[in-house]
């Protein structure tokens, strides 16, 4: 361990450095360590969280490199292989849903599209919607939460009531309804583009109150701290205090809620596509594969297992990582 690091956050918010020093002394002798460093060291010791983190990285790579990966195994997600389908039942020939050296995870019933290629491309939709809707929720939640907590009064009253209202809404119902009534063309996007865009907006919109409430609560307690008063007495403006003094101290809870929100959003996207209101074929999505698989689960159970496991592994990886991040950033945690 070396001397305290000069991180940008430390300059922007003096308290971050102070707290880090305090936490550092509490954790071990006298060495000063930043909060981020302490969190990273805790995270490094958490094997399960690291496994989750590595899996998340692999999944992101798979999604980014989908065209490369599918061309490496020589499969096109949209190519039909009707010669591999039993004409009588519409199910793949051979055992285990037509798994072979050529089709690593078998082929779809009826049209014989390669499942491996479709799973790889499905990761794109899942991760894209999962991440971007979380970004929408964080931006909205942070801005509105910080405004509510900092200004109080009627600003707080309005924002808090809206958050309460949104949390009490039958959310899935509204998400389904909103996604369904959206037109097929929007802002120059078409078909799948519109659906993905609308899903991101709608899922993000219903997610922001969760982050907003936490940010508001934290802001309420932070704005009374001495360092805010000090900044104010030095003549700092409201927005300087909001974004330079308060925001850096809200980063930890925001990160925790983000990592916990992404898997939920991925599940919501899958559920929408499963219900037939999300991504439509021929674009592949895991939820939509499961919805087709429902018609074949007796004759071809493998077709259901593959996308199901894909969703499970993805969400589990994010959850493992998210739990680890939460424990690592929790100042009370001794784990």
């Amino acid at each position, binding site marked *: 361990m070396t001397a305290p690091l000069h991180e940008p956050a430390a300059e922007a918010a003096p308290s971050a450095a102070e707290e880090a020093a305090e936490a550092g002394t509490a954790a071990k002798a006298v060495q000063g360590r930043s909060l981020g460093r302490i969190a990273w060291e805790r995270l490094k010791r958490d094997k399960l969280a690291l496994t989750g983190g590595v899996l998340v990285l692999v999944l992101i790579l798979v999604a980014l490199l989908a065209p490369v990966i599918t061309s490496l195994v020589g499969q096109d997600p949209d190519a039909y292989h009707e010669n591999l389908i039993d004409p009588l039942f519409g199910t793949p020939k051979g055992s285990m849903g037509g798994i072979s050296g050529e089709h690593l995870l078998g082929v779809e019933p009826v049209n014989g599209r390669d499942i491996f290629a479709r799973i790889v491309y499905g990761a794109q939709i899942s991760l894209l919607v999962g991440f971007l809707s979380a970004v929408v929720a964080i931006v909205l939640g942070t801005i509105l939460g910080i405004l509510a907590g900092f200004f109080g009064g009627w600003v707080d009253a309005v924002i808090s009531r809206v958050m309460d209202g949104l949390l009490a809404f039958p959310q899935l119902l509204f998400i389904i309804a909103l996604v369904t*009534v959206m037109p097929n063309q929007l802002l120059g996007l078409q078909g799948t583009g519109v659906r993905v865009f609308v899903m991101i907006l709608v899922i993000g919109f219903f997610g922001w109150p969760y982050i907003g409430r936490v940010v508001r609560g934290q802001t309420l307690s932070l704005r009374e701290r001495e360092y805010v008063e000090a900044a104010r007495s030095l003549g700092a403006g409201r927005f300087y205090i909001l974004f330079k003094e308060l925001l850096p101290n809200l980063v930890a809870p925001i990160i925790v809620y983000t990592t916990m929100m992404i898997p939920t959003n991925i599940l919501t996207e899958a559920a929408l596509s499963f219900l037939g209101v999300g991504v439509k074929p021929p674009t592949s999505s895991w939820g939509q594969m*499961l919805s087709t698989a429902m018609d074949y689960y007796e004759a071809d159970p493998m077709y259901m297992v593959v996308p199901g496991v894909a969703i499970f592994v993805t969400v589990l990886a994010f959850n493992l990582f998210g739990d680890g991040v939460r424990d690592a950033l929790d100042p009370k945690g001794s784990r």
Partner: protein
Amino acid sequence: MLAYLIRRLFAAAVMLVVIILVVFGIFFLIPKWAGVDIATSFVGKQADPASVEAVRQKLGLADPVYSQAWEFFKGIFVGRTYSGGGDVTHCAAPCFGYSFRSEQAVWPVLTDRFPVTLGLALGAAVLWLVFGVAAGVLSALKRGSLWDRGAMLVALSGVSLPIYFTGMLALTVVSFKLDLLDGQFVPISHSFSGWLGGMILPWITLAFLYAAMYARITRATMMEILGEDYIRTARAKGLREQVVIRKHAMRSTMTPILTMLGMDLGALIGGAILTETTFNLPGLGQKVLDAIKNQDLPFILGVTLITSLAVLIANLVVDILYAVIDPRVRLA
């Protein structure tokens, strides 16, 4: 206590009105911006202009949105008469209107489907409360033990599994491979044992997901509470550990659990869309999904209202229970 209740009831009523207005907005304004005509979609694509106009008159679709919303409100309490465009149809209170697609009255269909969903939600809730809370408390008390790690890994997997996937797996293994249950829904009025047999898999599948969530929350809450000063005080004054846990720790642990239960149960009673779709249960969730896909506004409004009402009632019950458990709430 009474003032507290009245305040809660008032907030609930306001919420209900807001929800109705929002649903109306979504289904009347967005199609308008998108250039879709509701009357045309009601009659069908190849409709002649005259019958489209007749439908528009009869349903009052040409009226401003606020007066349509008002007519809908009124219909619920005093009934409604459709008289525009010639023939007259009377719809007795509570009138939720007629389907845009099948011209069925909405209210009887809702009352028909409600018991299915209610049975599903309540049965599963009993299961997940018992198993989820028990697993969470045990884990918190034996923190770091093999049981704790195992239970939490199962719980983490549970919250990572989509319910339609677990449902399909259960159906494949139990109904198809092992041939134990046939997984068919039978109305409770036909045969109680048949109903029970059809509901076992949906109950277990649904309860597994929620039990996993509740176990995680219970464990975290319990551990936080066990670190509180008043627990130390209770121990220091010589109370037996069992009493400390049961009387002091459990009481505070139950408050956040109750909040969650109110929200979850309310939302499920209004239609467990995913579970009902997976197991083909003829409940409200299946109906509303159907209605949304067909843009059948009267049904969507009806189910949304029931859902919102269920959420509000469940939250109200929770608020009252709160006041019973925690005296501080009564004074706030």
